[in-house]
């Protein structure tokens, strides 16, 4: 009964909203023009990076805080020490060993590319995290226990750097107001910090979690 009602509601919603979507006229405001007009002043030439780190950089700052919160909450509910890693077949281990430097190179490339073409801190951080997960899955990297001081510093460094720079830029008149001449450099510095911390956080989401028993799937 409930299932039928929900099904009917969902269908009605799809038809109603879909119909309204199709008959929609052009939008009142087009931000594409504004983004293009200010792109030169943003310090980067790739529009998505300009929006992510400059025009709407405040969103990104808070979003990294969301990731940290998820990590904190996960740490708060998992209190067992990490289990010993289960080594995989030596061939797999060799492949993973070989792949890791390549993945780090890819991450650096993505970070550098973000300024003028697709890429940036999030994708680069995700690749770093993937490398860590891979090493963990073949048994070369143990699951993480309660993080020590160094790991805590690494997890927060990117966010702390971003926050400190945002606050320091208040001297320019507003939060995150980059001086146009230095905007490109500052964005690269922030992204570099974020890449390392995001890599650690995203890897942590996996490695802190997978410690309640061995890590393999």
């Amino acid at each position, binding site marked *: 009964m409930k*299932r039928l009602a929900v099904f009917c509601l*969902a269908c009605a919603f799809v038809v109603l909203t879909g119909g309204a*979507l199709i008959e929609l006229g052009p939008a009142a405001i087009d931000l594409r023009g504004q983004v293009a007009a200010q792109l030169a002043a943003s310090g980067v030439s790739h529009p998505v990076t300009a929006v992510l780190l400059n025009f709407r950089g405040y969103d990104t700052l808070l*979003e990294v805080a969301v990731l940290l919160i998820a990590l904190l909450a*996960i740490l708060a*509910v*998992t209190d067992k020490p990490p289990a010993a890693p289960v080594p995989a077949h030596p061939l797999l281990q060799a492949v993973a060993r070989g792949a890791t430097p390549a993945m780090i190179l890819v991450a650096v490339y993505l970070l550098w590319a973000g300024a003028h073409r697709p890429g940036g801190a999030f994708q680069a951080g995700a690749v770093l995290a993937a490398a860590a997960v891979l090493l963990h899955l073949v048994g070369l990297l143990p699951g993480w226990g309660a993080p020590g001081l160094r790991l805590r510093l690494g997890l927060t460094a990117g966010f702390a750097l971003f926050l400190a720079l945002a606050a320091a830029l208040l001297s320019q008149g507003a939060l995150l107001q980059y001086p146009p001449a230095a905007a490109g450099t500052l964005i690269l510095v922030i992204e570099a910090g974020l890449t390392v911390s995001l890599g650690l956080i995203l890897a942590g989401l996996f490695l802190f979690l997978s410690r309640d028993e061995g890590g393999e799937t």
Partner: protein
Amino acid sequence: MTSGLLFALVGVALFALGLAGLVLIGDVLRRILAFNLMGSGAFLVLVGLAQRNGVPDAVPQAMVLTGIVVAVAATALALALARRLDAQREGALPEDEDG
């Protein structure tokens, strides 16, 4: 019809599917999948609808990047809670009600 509009329509359907799943399904892992479908639907609408004239728009694209990261954070937290709960309820099988 542009790709933008087409994928916006797909987004509406995905959102409805995910939401219905979240309401109807009891199994925790399955609900996490449903939540992710819901999010993907919203993201497709955000970008697709803004690009219904076929021109890329960087602003919603950046928002979706933000949204994807928020979604993975929420997913990881939900999984952590599900695993902890399962470990505490050892023996009590999570019932698997399919959508």
